[in-house]
């Protein structure tokens, strides 16, 4: 009944909104003398033919403009007349066009990157005014070029580690790939690689991420004000795009590093029409194990590899097809046990221009994460354990450049989730183990959305939209009923294909930007997000042994409300972009786990969940310089994050583990000369909140700690400096090969940052107890040779 009511309510709201938009669109002042015309086109890199995402078109005398979408396409409506157009993109030389608009016009622009300009080290550019006037806040964009300049652990350029340096983002554990955005849990980040969900972005316990920098074009991180086209996660969207491949000429790049080697090749299939990109990476950490004096360590196999592939075909002016895929695997094994995990994604996309004003994209996406663990046959208690999470998604997105003051976006998506939380069985003929299989979990997650970028006046930009989302739990399933003490009291069985539970969510997303002057603006946003699938993990660093579960009769969807307010200013003389943002975020139905929860291979896992609320608030200050010899950013975040769950900490609020009030990141790159550049980053964060014992008792000869309040202690503050020097080879005319040496040091002043503090007993006298810290990385120097041809 209630759901029916909500559905009707939603439909009426949608119809109302649509008619409002159509009305506002129609009500504009078009007259026979002042006719609307369309200016559109693609903006590309002149060297590679690669489309540029977020490139700016500045239109005078309108003192406004537009930016390209994720496919490099732009479209804007103008009255007939004379205009000066400025096409620009960070790190590229600007181009100017003067046009007399008499009819609809298509202008494709190829921008020349600063690297290709002879005799010039850097291009000094204006800071984009688009950043000031657009009704979009809480977003950070990183180009792969700037990510490459950040010194990295063992020289492995890592997109996730770069994201962790942005304001409002916290690594959940040293060296890990997990991160918390504005106090959210790591499972509240929607990590997309060419639109495909990446369930677990980590390699080698998270020390490295699955994103091979050679295959990546760039990333956008939405920390709040998440556009309605994205759904399903509360805290953030990490939208990673792969390179499309050079459509002009065959080329490649790669590197030989301390722990891995990489190679990427790209080239045209048909010049200027289609191209491909193939990239691979493999580590050889196991070679270092061979140097160990310990025989047991020597006999281990430990490596990971990944492949990225992409191809695109331009069928005609209106149709373009993209195919992309990722395949990665981690392997750790020896004679006694084995552990492996990996992600596989595949995306097929079709860009279609219905006309110059209606841009569309249709996608089919497959995504899978799986792991296996076991003791090989022949060993005592040999077993094999496998688990997987699988998604198939179909979606379509439309952008309608409806009028001078309106851009409408709308679309639908549906994802079929199949989670296999675990199957364990003994192996060998003499096995003592029964097969144990956790029931599969199937659900359908759907969403439709509509939004409008609405220019109210030259100063005021509004973006409003609504997303309607729904989750259907689909049989076959056994659903257990739990009483208020989380004891199992009943169960119900549902047949194959039966929809036994439905949740719906209305997600309004509103933001506005008010331009104060040419250089500054204030912005505000309110967004609601609903999350239907969650990760059962209560450790901070996280292992590959992920178990995702969907909302169900026992688990309500998580809902998040976020309010943000910000001041944005460009300081033109210094090419500085600055921003100050404040946020308050409330997470309803936050999920936590009972004390000593059993999350692995537990058929009754829903009885281990506890529910409550989580909230966080904070201020983020950012100074960023994208151009010039000295570039990079300085950010400071002050924030707090709390949770309150009835069954945990006696129902009293406690700080979340990743509540780290003060957080500073300084990321700098200095071009010393054309051939030498220096990089450094320094991070500082208040130690994470931890629980320490306040007493102890003894059972047998075992000392057992007694705890008081959860997370009432702090680890020592975290800080670390990484540095790097890059030396480029001399450029010689006619030589295609370009090489560079990169020398870096992670944790340059050898700070011992505790990863964990354990309380231990002395072996020969258990009554004597002591605290012991474990730290991961002392100073880690590395050398990488990178090349391009």
């Amino acid at each position, binding site marked *: 009944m209630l759901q029916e009511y909500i559905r009707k309510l939603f439909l009426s709201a949608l119809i109302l909104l649509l008619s409002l938009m159509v009305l506002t669109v129609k009500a504009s002042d078009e007259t026979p003398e002042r006719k609307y015309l369309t200016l559109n086109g693609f903006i590309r890199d002149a060297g590679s033919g690669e489309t540029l995402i977020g490139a700016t078109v500045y239109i005078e005398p309108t003192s406004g403009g537009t930016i390209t979408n994720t496919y490099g396409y732009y479209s804007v409506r103008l009255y007939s007349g004379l205009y000066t157009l400025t096409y620009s993109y960070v790190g590229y030389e600007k181009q100017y066009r003067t046009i007399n608009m008499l009819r609809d016009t298509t202008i494709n622009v190829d921008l020349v990157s600063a690297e290709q300009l002879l005799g010039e080290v850097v291009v000094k550019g204006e800071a984009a005014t688009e950043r000031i006037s657009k009704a979009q806040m809480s977003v950070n964009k990183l180009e792969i070029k700037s990510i490459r300049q950040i010194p990295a652990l063992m020289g492995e350029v890592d997109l996730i580690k770069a994201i962790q340096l942005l304001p409002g983002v916290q690594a959940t*554990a040293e*060296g890990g790939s997990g991160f918390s955005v504005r106090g959210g849990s790591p499972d509240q980040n929607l990590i997309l690689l060419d639109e495909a969900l990446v369930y677990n972005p980590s390699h080698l*316990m998270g020390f490295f991420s699955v994103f091979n920098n050679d295959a990546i074009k760039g990333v956008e991180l939405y920390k709040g004000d998440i556009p309605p086209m994205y759904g399903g996660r509360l805290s953030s969207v990490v939208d990673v795009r792969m390179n499309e491949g050079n459509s002009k000429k065959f080329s490649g790049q790669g590197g030989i590093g301390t722990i891995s080697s990489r190679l990427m090749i790209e080239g045209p299939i048909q010049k200027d029409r289609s191209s491909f990109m193939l990239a691979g990476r493999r580590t050889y950490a196991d070679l270092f*194990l061979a140097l160990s004096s310990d025989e*047991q360590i020597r006999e281990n196999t*430990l490596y990971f590899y990944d492949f990225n592939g992409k191809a695109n075909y331009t069928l005609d002016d209106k149709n373009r097809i993209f195919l992309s895929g990722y395949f990665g695997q981690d392997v*750790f094994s020896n*004679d006694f*046990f084995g552990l492996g995990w990996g992600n596989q994604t595949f995306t097929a996309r079709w860009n279609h221009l219905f006309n110059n004003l209606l841009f569309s994209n249709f996608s089919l996406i497959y995504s899978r994460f799986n792991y296996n*663990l076991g003791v090989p046959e022949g060993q*005592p*208690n040999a*077993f094999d*354990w496998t688990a997987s999470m699988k998604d198939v998604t179909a979606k379509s997105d439309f952008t309608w450049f409806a009028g001078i003051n309106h851009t409408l976006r709308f679309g639908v998506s549906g994802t079929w989730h199949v989670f296999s939380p675990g199957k364990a069985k003994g192996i060998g003929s003499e096995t*003592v*183990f*029964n097969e*144990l299989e956790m029931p599969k979990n199937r659900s359908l997650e759907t969403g439709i959305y509509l939004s409008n970028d609405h220019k109210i006046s030259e100063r005021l930009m509004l973006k409003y939209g609504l997303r309607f989302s729904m989750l259907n739990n689909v049989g076959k399933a056994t659903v257990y009923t739990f009483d208020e003490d989380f004891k199992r009291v009943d169960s119900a069985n549902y047949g194959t294909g039966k929809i036994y539970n439905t949740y719906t969510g209305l997600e309004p997303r509103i933001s506005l930007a008010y331009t104060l002057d040419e250089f500054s603006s204030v912005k505000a946003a309110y967004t609601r997000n609903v999350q239907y699938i969650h990760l059962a993990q*209560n*450790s901070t*660093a*996280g*292992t590959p*042994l992920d178990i995702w579960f969907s909302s169900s009769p026992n688990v309500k969807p998580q809902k998040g409300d976020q309010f943000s307010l910000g001041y944005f200013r460009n300081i033109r003389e210094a090419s500085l972009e600055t921003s100050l943002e404040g946020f308050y975020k409330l997470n309803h139905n936050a999920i936590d786990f009972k004390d*000593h*929860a059993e999350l*692995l*291979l537990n058929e009754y896992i829903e009885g281990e969940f506890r529910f409550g609320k989580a909230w966080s608030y904070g201020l983020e200050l950012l100074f960023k310089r994208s151009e010039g010899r000295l570039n990079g950013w300085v950010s400071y975040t002050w924030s707090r994050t709390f949770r309150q769950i009835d069954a945990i900490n006696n129902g009293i609020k406690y700080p979340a583990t990743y509540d780290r009030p003060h957080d500073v990141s300084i990321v700098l790159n200095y071009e010393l000369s054309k051939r030498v550049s220096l990089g450094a980053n320094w991070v500082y964060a208040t130690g994470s909140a931890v*629980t*320490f*014992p*306040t*007493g*102890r*008792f*003894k*059972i*047998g000869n*075992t*000392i*057992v*700690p*007694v705890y*008081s309040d*959860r*997370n009432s202690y702090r680890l020592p503050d975290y800080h670390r400096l990484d540095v790097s020097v890059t030396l480029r080879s001399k450029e010689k005319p006619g030589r295609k090969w370009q090489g560079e040496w990169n020398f870096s040091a992670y944790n340059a002043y050898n700070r*011992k940052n*505790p*990863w*964990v503090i354990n*309380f231990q007993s002395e072996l020969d006298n258990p*009554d*004597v*107890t002591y*605290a012991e*810290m*474990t*730290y*991961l*990385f002392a100073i880690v120097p590395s050398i990488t040779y990178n090349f391009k041809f």
Partner: protein
Amino acid sequence: MKTTSTAVVILILMSALFSCTERIDIELKENFRRIVVEGTITSDTTAHRVRLTTTTNYFYGEEPPVVAEAIVYLDNGNQKIQLDETPVGSGVYQTPADYYGIPGTAYQLEINIKEPIGDQDFFTASNTMPETALSIDSISLEYEPTFEIWFVKLYALDPPTTDFYRIDVQVNDLLISDTASRAQVTDDRFFNGNNTNGLTVSILRKDEVNVGDTVTLLLSSITEDYYRFFMQLQMESGFSSPLFSGPPANVTSNIKEGGLGFFAAMGRARKTLIVTDEVWTNTGR
């Protein structure tokens, strides 16, 4: 559970490849004092013991203070007996030496103490000895040269009911499994109703077994509550790592009125293996 603990071992080994440890000084707040009860009634005929101590601050460095001169009763539903503090002042209260527990019986413990602890001077606890029919066919030893350890293997038939077990090992008269990390508890999910068929249930160090020794395996059937208590004891006293450990939390207890520890009733079977020259040769040592 075996499989999950193997997973944990694998992850510890992986993280050990990258980490270093170092002792540090940390100041800890003090908690209020609580009573700690450690009592076990088994199906063996012996003097069963209940030990009363108190909590201390974490870096206390000595044996915990005992709670002496308490009045402790054990009630099996038919008969309520007082346990004697032997020796006086030791905080250890014992049944007569001819006492034995009977499977299926609910045991209740009542403790009156002289000086209140945490405003309480009366504590109770109860536990029912599981009815699991226990019998061990045999045990064997196998030597593992790489890690220089002995596997103790169990051959026994598990009944079709859901059962929980504790496994202890004695070499000659010495109880090897006197710490939480050396004793094992397990449920029967992976072998329910089957013969355990040589399941490795305990591990001994190289030098703990020699020719001529008597190795005794004690198999106790325990309640689910005790199984959870002991799992938590292992978790909280063991090494924790951000990779797999959840947030630390207090070990549950079945002592009412704010006590800590556990009062357990468990049925017990045992099997002995004398390490003769022939056995020694067959182990692969």
